[in-house]
């Protein structure tokens, strides 16, 4: 998740576009007109070249690799052996890919549902708290949010450690004595449980804090009008707050789907997709097939299929965002 923790640029006053035919605000005042027309493209050129070279080219390469028979031998000897759609045939007809895909979907759904529900509740709580308590909770949220993912994964390994881990100690104390020596990373479900806690814990702050920020922009008059009309607290919530927050929630849900679907770092650093490759989600599966087992062509095919899935979700997300920010573009 790294990334970019705020996705939208802060919106400032937007430019006024002169309608067609109106006087152009700034004509090619200096220099020959042709050159001035080129200026924006020249300014954009470095960014575009860098993106095409370092993002576009790997994407194309990934596509080409996926049509090659590229294993250890070909890799060492620098051989290029095209094998058409063989990799895809093998991936798509095998059981593994579909099992991993299904697992990824369930994994993503479970995480995102929890993140959105709990994040919304925490955000609404922030809006209801007094100033002091809000600052306190905010500090806690920001600390969890800010933890570098590799660091927080390491901490979770320690929290859930078999010996001397705090979680096992607490569970044993509150009556689950059998948990005293529990190895959380020994089975598929308990490993996923730890990953899920880790991701949900670290993702709630983004949703909660931004949702709180969004609630502060709801005009007070709307609530006054609603209460004049005799709306109770619940009615105000469903008829003022929720409709106002809906576009935000919608966009955030998709953002979280994208982030969780490619949660490589958490899953890989916690247990490397183990035990027994049972917690591999798509990005981890592609990595282990490609880099780990040195079936680079196969790995590239899996990666490409994953990219296609992500691209579909992303373009849907962008459509939502663009619709909301239409006037800003």
């Amino acid at each position, binding site marked *: 998740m790294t990334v970019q923790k705020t996705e939208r640029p802060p919106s*400032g006053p937007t430019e006024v576009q002169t309608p067609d035919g109106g006087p152009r605000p700034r004509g090619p005042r200096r220099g020959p007109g042709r050159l001035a027309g080129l200026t924006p493209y020249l300014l954009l050129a470095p960014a575009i070249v*860098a993106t095409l070279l*370092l993002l576009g080219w790997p994407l194309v390469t990934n596509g080409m690799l996926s049509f090659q028979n590229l294993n250890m031998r070909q890799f060492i000897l620098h051989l290029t052996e095209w094998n058409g759609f063989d990799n895809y045939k093998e991936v798509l007809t095998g059981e593994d890919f579909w099992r991993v895909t299904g697992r990824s979907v369930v994994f993503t759904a479970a995480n995102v549902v929890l993140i959105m529900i709990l994040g919304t509740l925490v955000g609404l709580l922030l809006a209801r708290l007094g100033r002091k308590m809000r600052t306190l909770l905010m500090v806690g949220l920001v600390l969890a949010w800010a933890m570098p993912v590799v660091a927080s994964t390491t901490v*979770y390994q320690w929290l859930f450690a078999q010996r001397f881990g705090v979680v096992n100690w607490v569970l044993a104390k509150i009556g689950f004595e059998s948990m005293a020596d529990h190895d959380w990373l020994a089975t598929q479900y308990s490993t996923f449980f730890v990953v899920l806690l880790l991701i949900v814990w670290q993702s709630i702050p983004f949703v909660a804090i931004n949702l709180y920020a969004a609630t502060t*922009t709801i005009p007070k008059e709307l609530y006054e009008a609603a209460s004049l009309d005799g709306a109770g607290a619940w009615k105000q919530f469903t008829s003022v707050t929720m409709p106002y927050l809906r576009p935000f929630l919608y966009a955030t849900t998709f953002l979280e789907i994208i982030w969780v679907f490619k949660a490589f770092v958490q899953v890989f650093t916690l247990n490397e997709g183990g035990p027994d490759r049972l917690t591999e989600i798509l990005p981890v599966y592609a990595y282990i097939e490609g880099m780990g087992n040195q079936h680079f062509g196969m790995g590239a095919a899996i990666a490409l299929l994953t990219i296609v899935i992500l691209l579909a979700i992303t373009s849907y997300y962008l459509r939502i965002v663009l619709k909301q920010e239409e006037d800003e573009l």
Partner: protein
Amino acid sequence: MKRSPLGRIWPNLTAVVLFLIFVFPVYWMFATAFKPAGDILSEDPVWFPTDATLEHFKTAMDADHFWTMVGNSITVTAGAVVFSLIIGVTAAFALARMRFKGRRGFIIGFMLAQMAPWEVMVIAIYMIVRDADMLNSLIPLTLFYMVMILPFTLLTLRGFVAAVPKELEESAMVDGCTRMQAFRRVILPLLAPGLMSTSLFGFITAWNEFPLVLVLNKEADAKTLPVWLSSFQTAFGDDWGATMAAASLFALPILILFVFLQRRAVSGLADGAVKG
């Protein structure tokens, strides 16, 4: 609206419980890092490090290549941030201030690039870098990190440039500045907060990046800190004190930056929405 005493207490109580839940892992990381080994490996957890020790930090910092990796992390992060700022600010200016054909398309293109699934592209990137014979070098890492943070930098700065009143720039040009001078003397100083926060977010992204360096730089003296940290626990057996000290060292700069940034980010978001 009247609220019963209970109605006033439960939100505060929930807030405290939530605070503890969110803070505890972070607290436990620092607490473990400062505890003497005996307090870490004890049947009942020691909740507060009473006799703090710096021993674990010493173990972590004395680990092989630690300082090389700190240097590597700083080099690739700073390089990526500086380059993407330079490239980003020129592009942001064009996108915010000029009208030209394909502008909207470029913006959408960069939005798409911002969501690029780098985690899934490691195999292809590995092949490219190997064929260029640049594995275990910091140059490809710096370049890829630059492009990783470029779309965010550029799109965010676009918002900041657009927020600078056009009249300021125009009056500078009426006063005889060229467009370039107007940009340098009028817009750039006003962009300082924007440059600041985008570069800090870029810093965080590049500092934390893991999958790419995992595949590209396998030699010990070419790694960066995230890879070091992820393999630390295996390398040091179950020395949780040293592992948590390592995690603390790695996380601390980011935690500080983030707490500092958060105010701006949230207030910026709120302001923007109010104005828009």
